[in-house]
């Protein structure tokens, strides 16, 4: 199925400037599976979103149709067809 990933400006150097990417995710489609597909094309993006254990970076938020994934099932959050994944750096630092 196809989902759309919205890339924040600060990470667009890693997507050749693309602000949103359409991703074809095999079933069962989850957030983690979508990020796996993205990683194949954009490894530089992936290393900024996830560590080497495929763990989501603590201060990066992933909204699936407007809901932050950690309030859902994290990387295992199922994606409905046409889902929109919005990636946003969280509030952190000083």
């Amino acid at each position, binding site marked *: 199925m196809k989902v759309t990933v919205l890339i924040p400006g600060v*990470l667009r150097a890693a997507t050749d400037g693309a602000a949103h990417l359409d991703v074809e995710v095999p079933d069962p489609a989850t957030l983690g599976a979508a990020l796996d597909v993205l990683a194949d094309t954009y*490894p*530089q993006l992936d*290393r*900024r*979103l996830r*560590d*080497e*254990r495929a*763990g989501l*970076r603590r*201060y*990066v938020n992933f909204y699936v149709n407007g809901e932050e994934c950690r309030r859902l099932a994290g990387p295992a959050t199922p994606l409905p067809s046409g889902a929109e994944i919005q990636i946003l*750096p*969280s509030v*952190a*630092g000083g």
Partner: protein
Amino acid sequence: MTVVVAIGTRKGLWLARSEDRVSWQVDGPHHAMQEVYAVAFDSRAGLRLMAGVSSPHFGPGVSISDDLGATWEESSTPPIAFPVEEAALERVWQLQPAPAAQPGVVWAGTQPSALFKSSDGGRSFEFVEGLWNHPHRPEWEAGFGGQAVHTIVPDPVDPDRLLVAMSTGGVYRTADGGKSWEARNKGIKAYFFPDPWPEFGQCVHKVAQHPAAPSRFYAQNHHGVYRSDDGGDSWQSIADGLPTDFGFAMVVHPHDPDTIFTFPIEADGRRFPPEGKCRVYRSRDAGATWQALGEGLPDDFWTAVMRDAMCTDDAEVPGVYFGSRSGEVYASPDEGETWHRVAAHLPDVMSVRAVVVPT
């Protein structure tokens, strides 16, 4: 002669350049908003600058510049990655090029405590399994800054010999290229344990060695300043002439194995220079006696110098450099006799390295 000083801070890297080591031009930030705990010049082939960078949001990595910061290269895949299930890289604390006879070899010390080896000049690194599998590892605890291998001292001659230091854990040594490791902390006090003389668990802040004296090491400990004359087998205190035995930095003169520099801090519970006076201490006799160096350095300096924020260059008359948590950087063009301010109002300085640019 042109000298470049790389200044790694909590929010990026600055580069200072000078012809006389008195007046400086500073440019930056490079890698803005990224912590730079580790920085290294590799002058074995050309001049490469390496930085261990870490974004609080987007994670850690290693960035390389072969043109003194004009351009940077970072691999698309993580250059340092744990191949084990139970850990992920949090921060690079040390980047240490090996001696000239091992071109391309660069060691990296990380948080969590592990060692990695690059054979391609820092572009990619392999995990050193032997240290990770050490039976002591479950008992290495995190200090205030995190639990990390922050010091790597390659033997100047034998590529199989290496010493590392970690907080906490202490000093470990290998003689077989990293396959097996032995704790080497005899004589280093760990006052924060019920038994203050354990085999391991010490909080060694920095270890330094001169290539011409490969059996001798100097260590600045979390309270305690030591020297070993037997390759780390035993350690003796050299703190007597210092105003305090706490501190982070320990630096050896590039041409004299008997001359060392440190920056004493009052105590674990009072992390300021004694009386708030910014002073570097130098010993010319391997720690038997010490001299305070302060000409050009301020009083009312209520800050501290971190473990990798002091260094020398390798000029004939070497310069000495340090940076502070308060974002000030000082340079001495004459082995510490006089000091000049390089920069001020930077973020917390975490790492400082200097190089004479080859002509």
